[in-house]
Structures are given as structure tokens and as C-alpha cells.
């Protein structure tokens, strides 16, 4: 555990369960709201956690999310047991996906998940071992104020 931890909890995720998939991230969202983080931070953490959780549902056997909150950061470690990722650089590319037709029919598999995680986090670490599993670490810094544009357009003067 990281020093000065103010909150730490783990959540299990079952591979292939599209009905319950997303519930772990939903709990994380609720906890961060309760801890009174600014909405923009809660939203970024929620999106990143959800994309990573759904990757477990889609591509792994099982796994979990671990939320750790310290005074200056939110860390979400998403780890699974599963097939792993053969080429991480390729997997990180916008549009790259190995999703099945069935998954695509549900609106997943656009190859935007990992890029979305990167975009919404301040630090993202990903490692994977073929045939064993994948680990994604999402860090969101909580100490640099709540004003932050979510897209690349310049902020309008207010």
C-alpha cells in the first residue's frame, strides 16, 4: 500500500459478463464522488476505469480493479488473468481492435479504449504477459485544480 493512503478497496470483475460489466467502475465513481473530488476528475477516473474494466470483460478470464486514493492522487490498478496482449504498442493505437463481431454488435471494439484511458489519465502504465494476463495502472493527479479541458480545443475566455 502507498503511504498516506486515505482509501483502498478492490473489486472483482468476471470475464464475459456484459450484464454486470461496469459495476466495479460504477462503485469507484460513487466512492470518488463521496470523497468530494471535482466532477472533472471523477469523470476522467470513471471513463478510464470503465474502459479498462470492459477490456477484462471482453478479453480476459477474470480480474479486478483496485482503487487507492492518497491526498494527491487517484490510482486505479486494473489487473487480469487472461490471454495477455502480444504487442502493446499496436494495441494502444487508435482504432486497433481484435474484438469479435458479437462484441462489435454491442458497440464495443472500436479500438478506442486504451487511447481513451491514456487521454483521461495523467499517467498510464500497461504491462502484459502472454497467456498470463494484463495490468493497467491509471494515475490521476488530484491536486492541480478542477479546471481542465477534456478535449484538445482551446478553452474559451470566460
Amino acid at each position, binding site marked *: 500500500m502507498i503511504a498516506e493512503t486515505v482509501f483502498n478497496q478492490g473489486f472483482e470483475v468476471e470475464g464475459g459478463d*456484459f*450484464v454486470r*460489466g*461496469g*459495476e466495479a*467502475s*460504477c462503485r469507484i*465513481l460513487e466512492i470518488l464522488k463521496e470523497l468530494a473530488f471535482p*466532477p472533472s476528475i471523477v*469523470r476522467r477516473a*470513471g*471513463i478510464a476505469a*470503465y*474502459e479498462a474494466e*470492459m477490456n477484462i470483460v471482453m478479453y480476459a478470464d477474470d480480474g479486478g480493479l483496485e482503487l487507492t486514493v492518497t491526498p494527491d492522487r487517484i490510482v486505479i490498478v486494473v489487473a487480469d488473468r487472461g490471454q495477455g496482449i502480444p504487442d502493446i504498442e499496436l494495441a494502444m493505437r487508435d482504432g486497433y481492435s481484435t474484438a469479435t463481431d458479437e462484441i462489435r454488435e*454491442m*458497440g*464495443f471494439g*472500436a479500438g*478506442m*479504449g486504451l487511447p*481513451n484511458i491514456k*487521454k483521461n489519465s495523467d499517467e498510464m502504465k500497461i504491462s502484459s504477459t502472454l497467456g498470463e494476463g494484463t495490468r493497467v495502472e491509471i494515475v490521476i493527479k488530484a491536486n492541480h485544480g478542477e*479546471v*481542465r*479541458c*477534456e*478535449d484538445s*480545443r482551446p*478553452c*474559451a475566455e470566460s
Partner: protein
Amino acid sequence: MRLSQIADALELEMCTTNCSLDCEVTGCYVSDILSDVMANSKEGYLWITIHIHPNIAAVSEFLALGGVIVVNGRRPQPETLEKANEHKIPIFTTKLSAYEVAGRLYGSGLRCQKEC
């Protein structure tokens, strides 16, 4: 524009049971790709989609969307409505297509508010 006004004007059929329509809609996004919605819609937006599975409720919850309009007469699955009711996310259905719904919303003056 209020969600209740939009629901009346487009004669949307409400599928959820305990959601208030007394809220301001800040914009709209049309997409059937969940990650695309995650990347490009903002708080208070209405989401137009053909999807009916529970993840539309989850995505709406993460993004704090104002509601979902399911088009082409499709009906959300019971698990979807359960989740949506739990999180108080209004879901509607309509026989109209995504094109028709978006066109009418734009025609009625709804624009996407810039967030920052």
C-alpha cells in the same frame, strides 16, 4: 432546453419509471460506438442510439448524461431499465430513426454547449 419539453415535442415513450424530466439538456450526441460516446459527449447530453443492453445505462452514468433516446422502435432490455432506474437515468424509445430524432432536435434549436 428542458428534457420534458423534448420528450413532449418528439412524443418520446418513457421506458424508465423513476426518473425526473425536469432537467436541462446541454447537447446531444449520436453514436452506436460506446467508446466514441465516452470520448465525445458531455454532462447533460442526450444520447441517441440503437443499443438496448445494460451498458448504455453504465455509460450514461459515467458521463452524467441527461438521458438516452433509443431509436427505430427498439426496446431496452429489462436489465438495462433496472440499472437506469437505479441511477435515475431517463431512457426513452421512439419509432423514429436516429437521423429523424437528431434532425428534429437540431431544428428545435438544441445546440451543444461548450464546457470550458
